């Protein structure tokens, strides 16, 4: 299989696994030590990168998932170098929303994005990102903007007028970007200027794979191999793994992979009961995590686990991921009419939280969590319905 010639720098063999001296690897699992003033940042020192903050528990570098409520449940945010696996809800409505929040957060913070999808062009995905609620524009989002009688063009002009007042560069970096975690308006699209100012790479599977596919016995599905090479290439070329020390400004790479495991990726795990006899998806996840651990990146993956019949496989995938969150929407299920759940759109299950650099993890005490999507806000809360139910009957 084709390999990227420039990967990794020096050729590593068995010996390097035991070698004591390695090049200054920029892993994200650095202890937050005292700042050494006056020295150049060639050592493993945590420089402050926009949109990140250290965890209060272990100094682990965290990024926001785009949903402050979810950040709280995960113990402050998503750790850099880890994978967030979202088990999709049945119609992929809310999971794709979470996916978009994650990417939008990257744009607002100035992170580099890598969007991979097999069914949708990444450029289109970026167009559909929700608009951020920024402090200096908050005054706009009052009730008269949502007045449906106002013609569409009028609203657009209003926003453009606001932008004209401020110098262009300042507006592209929103004033509130120093805040960790932002709120988004799901009914509005992200402003075009923000997308154009951001740096992103797209991986659209039908473009990368030639139609005349020669089937060779590889250890991984062709699509997965291409994606891994693409990711590895970006990480190396742009220095997210610390291989370009002269880069002054460190940045985070946010990777988003949509519908991983679906048949469009060439994987049969969702189709047959004993699919994935080649263990394509698990090997992909393993190598991906290896790439993430040695670079300043964070990854979100949505997976249609409700289509996978082999439950043991889901357990394998969970063990190979760091954070796993499952979404269960009430659409079309009997719970939609259940009075207990009438305030909510679905349930959110925190299936796994990683223990990184620690014996313990920030597991929240509350396990019954429901979510609801209001126009501006995706809230997650303890299901109050249960309390009411008990008090009414006992």
């Amino acid at each position: 299989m084709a390999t990227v010639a420039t990967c990794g720098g020096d050729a590593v063999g068995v010996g390097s696994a035991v070698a004591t001296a390695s090049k200054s690897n920029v892993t994200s699992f650095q202890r937050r030590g005292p700042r050494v003033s006056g020295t150049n940042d060639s050592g493993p020192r945590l420089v402050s990168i926009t949109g990140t903050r250290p965890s209060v528990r272990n100094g682990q570098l965290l990024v926001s998932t785009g949903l402050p409520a979810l950040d709280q449940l995960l113990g402050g945010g998503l750790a850099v170098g880890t994978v967030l696996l979202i088990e999709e809800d049945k119609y992929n409505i809310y999971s794709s929303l979470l996916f978009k929040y994650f990417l939008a957060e990257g744009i607002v913070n100035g992170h580099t994005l890598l969007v991979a999808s097999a069914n949708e062009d990444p450029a289109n995905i970026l167009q559909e990102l929700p608009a951020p609620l920024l402090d200096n524009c908050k005054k706009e989002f009052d009730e008269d903007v949502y007045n449906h009688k106002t013609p569409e063009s009028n609203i657009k002009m209003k926003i453009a007028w606001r932008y004209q007042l401020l110098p262009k560069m300042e507006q592209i970096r929103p004033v509130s970007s120093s805040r960790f975690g932002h709120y988004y308006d799901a009914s509005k699209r992200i402003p075009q200027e923000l997308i154009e100012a951001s740096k992103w790479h797209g991986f659209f599977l039908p473009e990368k794979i030639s139609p005349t596919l020669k089937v060779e016995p590889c250890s991984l599905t062709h699509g997965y191999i291409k994606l891994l090479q693409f990711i590895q290439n970006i990480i190396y070329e742009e220095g997210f793994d610390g291989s370009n020390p002269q880069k002054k400004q460190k940045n985070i790479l946010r990777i988003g992979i949509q519908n991983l495991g679906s048949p469009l990726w060439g994987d049969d795990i969702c189709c047959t009961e004993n699919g994935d006899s080649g263990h394509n998806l698990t090997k992909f996840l393993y190598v991906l995590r290896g790439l993430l651990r040695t670079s300043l990146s964070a990854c979100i993956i949505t997976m249609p686990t409700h289509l996978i019949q082999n439950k043991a496989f889901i357990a394998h995938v969970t063990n190979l991921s760091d954070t796993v969150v499952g979404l269960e929407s009430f659409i079309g299920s009997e719970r939609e009419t259940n009075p207990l759940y009438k305030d909510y759109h679905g349930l959110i299950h925190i299936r796994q939280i990683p223990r990184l650099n620690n014996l313990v993890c920030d597991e929240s005490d509350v396990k019954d969590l429901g979510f609801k999507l209001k126009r501006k806000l995706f809230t997650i809360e303890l299901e109050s319905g249960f309390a009411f139910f008990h008090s009414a009957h006992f």
Partner: protein
Amino acid sequence: MFPELNNLLNTTPDRAEQGKLTLLCDAKTDGSFLVHHFLSFYLKANCKVCFVALIQSFSHYNIVGQKLGVNLTMARERGQLVFLEGLKSAVDVFFQAQEKPHPLQFLREASAGNLKPLFEFVRVALKPVDSGAAGWTYPVLLVDDLSVLLSLGLGAVAVLDFIHYCRATLCWELKGNVVVLVHDSGDVEDEENDILLNGLSHQSHLILRAEGLATGFCRDVHGQLRILWRRPSQSTSQRDQSLTYQYKIQDRSVSFFAKGMSPAVL
């Protein structure tokens, strides 16, 4: 290492038993605290340790190890610890064709492979050095964890063969120890994992099983630990001794107590 667990197991780093296979398994909870315990235990016992860490990075174990009183970086530098970082090596073996067989060679193969290259790595790493200057007591192999090997496409038989070879070399020939972690899938029907778990259970001398509480999540009691001492080579005329404790994991240690005797309850 956790002093309370040493008391329960009735061992200290100075007088640990040799030639034993210890099986760690976890069901519905995270049993990685046991791996950290044994890693620091054997490093303190001055053993030569080969750690096949397939699931987390080196710095993770290093930082936790510092909380438990061992410095993995220094142990690696002076040759006491041989560390195979699975995640990092997987990237290397996947993107570059290797000249000689890499321990994780099976990642490149389309069909189910075997673990011979991994065994060779372990054997070379724990081979007794004739110079005798280092003076390590006995070799120890630690694997975290074996279920990952099953996820990556190896069969249960291949993994059992690997453990068999390791036991023959390390436990019988070199009088060392082997400690492995396997996840128990529980209700989920995972045939390969069950074969592996049953096979290893019959071969081990000590089984530590961390289970989540049957009643669900609890903030003060994180789970239950079952300890089972076995004598696989001898006839089972004597009953295997078994103990059960509940535990709570804290920042630097784990506290154990009898069932129902959690300090939060009393």
